[in-house]
């Protein structure tokens, strides 16, 4: 069910009304689970079962972890991490790798099509892994009830495009959900309005332009001006589209009484790559920082190249999260190396008084911003084009 559809508007209005009409916490939880089931069925019916299955397996493993003493949690935690990764690979890539044919007109509607991965699969994977690791590290004492876990896994406003949530922050709100205040409703509606404006008024026309100019035929034609314009407009499109959807997700969550994390903080203001990742898709980059970068950096803290190497690996995982393709690996690698270089710069050059003073001038800030944003736009071409080869062709064409 597309968020920008009348079906979604009617569906959400109904869920909102029922949610606040129901008297008890338990019935509201059941409604949210049921609503997400209906939401999934509007897309592909078996995805509801797949999501419930993935959530239930994470909950069972989570209970297993919490039932064991801290020193004996390694095995279930490993299983808890590997299971969502296996679901991700299985649902998203196995059918394709084994040459399964796309659906034809005669295909019965009820027959599951393994080429269609459940919506929100990558978010479910990372949220589940975070849940298991929080249990392992003792940041979370034990999982809540199966119902509350299902509400967490199946919360439809954030299922399509995030933001990614932390289990304990979200589940703590389930019990504390109060009748919505006028402030809350106004805040939610305003956020939805901002999201709709970004998506409909800004992202849609920008996307039409960018995607037209970045078609494979256009790249093959080697016309540098449209390709260059297409590349820059693509990043703007991506930002307005993604942050617009995030605003709608945050706004609708507000209306249902939940606070979910922010996803964007004016990324176009970033003056270095490190700052960029603190402003762009924040829920994902914070996840990567907390669950991949930090443990690795701590582990390798006595090695001179430990933290930069951890940054590289973290960004490769971030790239792979978008799909197991060469272009995403390259995207992660470039950003990882860029982050590592920035770390080295901060720890060496920036410690010199003259460089530090220079780095605080307006001119240097402008140059940093200019270089950062250009680097960001150029690396996002790997997302805009459908293959690594096409991204290279784009660069060749633009550079003449």
């Amino acid at each position, binding site marked *: 069910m597309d968020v920008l*559809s009348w079906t979604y508007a009617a569906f959400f209005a109904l869920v909102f009304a029922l949610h606040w009409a129901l008297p008890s916490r338990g019935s509201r939880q059941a409604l949210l689970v049921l609503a997400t089931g209906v939401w999934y069925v509007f897309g592909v019916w078996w995805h509801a079962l797949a999501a419930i299955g993935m959530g239930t397996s994470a909950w069972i493993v989570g209970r297993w972890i919490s039932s064991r003493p801290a020193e004996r949690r390694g095995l279930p935690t490993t299983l808890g991490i590997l299971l969502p990764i296996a679901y991700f690979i299985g649902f998203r890539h196995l059918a394709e790798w084994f040459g399964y044919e796309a659906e034809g007109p005669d295909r019965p509607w009820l027959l599951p099509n393994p080429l269609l991965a459940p919506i929100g699969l990558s978010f479910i994977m990372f949220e589940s892994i975070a849940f298991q690791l929080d249990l392992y590290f003792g940041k979370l004492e034990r999982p809540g009830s199966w119902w509350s876990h299902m509400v967490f896994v199946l919360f439809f406003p954030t299922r399509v495009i995030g933001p990614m949530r932390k289990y304990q922050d979200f589940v703590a709100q389930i019990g504390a959900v109060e009748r919505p205040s006028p402030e809350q409703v106004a805040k939610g509606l305003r956020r939805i309005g901002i999201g709709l404006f970004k998506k409909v008024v800004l992202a849609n026309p*920008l996307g039409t332009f960018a995607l037209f100019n970045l078609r494979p035929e256009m790249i093959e034609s080697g016309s540098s001006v449209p390709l260059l314009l297409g590349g820059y407009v693509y990043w703007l499109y991506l930002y307005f589209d993604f942050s617009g959807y995030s605003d709608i997700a945050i706004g609708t969550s507000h209306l249902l009484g939940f606070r979910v994390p922010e996803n964007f903080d004016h990324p176009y203001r970033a003056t270095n790559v490190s700052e960029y990742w603190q402003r762009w898709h924040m829920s994902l980059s914070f996840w990567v920082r907390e669950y991949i970068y930090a443990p690795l950096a701590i582990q390798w803290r006595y090695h001179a190249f430990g933290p930069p190497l951890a940054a590289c690996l973290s960004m490769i995982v971030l790239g792979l999260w978008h799909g197991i393709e060469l272009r995403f690996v390259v995207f992660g690698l470039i950003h990882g190396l860029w982050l590592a270089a920035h770390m080295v710069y901060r720890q060496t050059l920036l410690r010199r008084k003259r460089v530090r003073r220079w780095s605080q001038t307006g001119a240097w800030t402008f140059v940093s911003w200019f270089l950062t944003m250009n680097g960001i736009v150029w690396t996002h071409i790997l997302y805009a084009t459908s293959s690594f080869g096409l991204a290279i062709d784009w660069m060749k064409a633009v550079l003449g």
Partner: protein
Amino acid sequence: MAAASEAGAATPWSWGRLARIAGLAVVVLLLTDATLRGKEEEMSRAAADGGLRNRDGAASADACERMLFELPRDQVAQAVVFVGSSVSYGSNLSAREALPAQLASLWRAEGKRRPVFNCAQEGGRPESALSVAAALDSHPVALVLMEIMVPVYVERSQPPPPPWSEGEIALLQAARPAGRARLEAAGLWPRWPARVESLLTRLVRAHWRLYRIRGGLWIDEDMAPDQLAWTARRAAAAAQVLPKRFHGQTTNVGKLPWREAYVGGQRPSLVQHFRVPTARVSEPDYGALPVLRDLLIEANVPVLFYEIPINLPFQREFSLMSEDEIDRLARVRTLLLERMAKDELPILAAPEMPDEGFLDKAHLTPKGAARLARHLRGPAEALLDTSGSPDLRAGS
């Protein structure tokens, strides 16, 4: 000022305030709808003269939906409907310069007031025409003119067609049970979530004039950044701010004949290349034509297929198609016409088109559209006058 804004920021939200804002929004929408009444009437008049068309972009059929479902039944019954791709739609031309409007204008000049509907779509494929044909089942018209662009029917690997748009689904759902069964058999009937969305869209359309006029709240095509960018680039070149070569285009979005558009060493992009990898007819694309014919027989609406001229000098000038490809295209054309004749699908061959009739590979300048309209007028009139039987294959 600062104090005022602080006071404004501090205004607490209450249910009453929210209700007042909602009420105000409803009043604004009602007033907007009231002021748009004249605009809607003007659009209805334009629709009958071929001067209204679908939203820019592939797979949209909103204006067609409006013309078939919202205009008076007697006007619809008299109408000639164009279906096809961006060539008939009139990409880069104003709606009044496109082929359907030019045919309507020819008839008007003779004192005939026959409605002509532009139901062609940018990116329209043979399958897209089926949604219009399905709607004619319950909203019959006088004649359908269906474009045949030979390169579309070349067998090649290509991405699957885009999903039905809301407008197309609404058209499909207007089919009567027999038509629906035919579409289901061809695997073209939309799934139930799409039908739910279409139902809700129709509900909103029926009660909200602004939405009805603006469709899915799309942005006006004149505001699309590519149009703005090209216009600015051409203006800057004309004012000698940019070098002269920037006056030309890689995609001809102006209305200049192609020889005037691609100047100063400018070349069209490869989008303008008709790829002809085989000399065979594409079965999925051809397969839509008999289904279309059957749907129209069911609806008792005659159809005339007309061939779109292809700009081969343009392909040769810029070395886009190889001579082998041109040869294969000629063979596909022969096969296609033979097969259509065998399947009793009457086709009107393309007219000779002068250089200044083309914008690019096949899109037409206003002059080109007028030339094709004159070519279509006779055979269309013959079919409208049921006593006549035109010699359709007598053309080039």
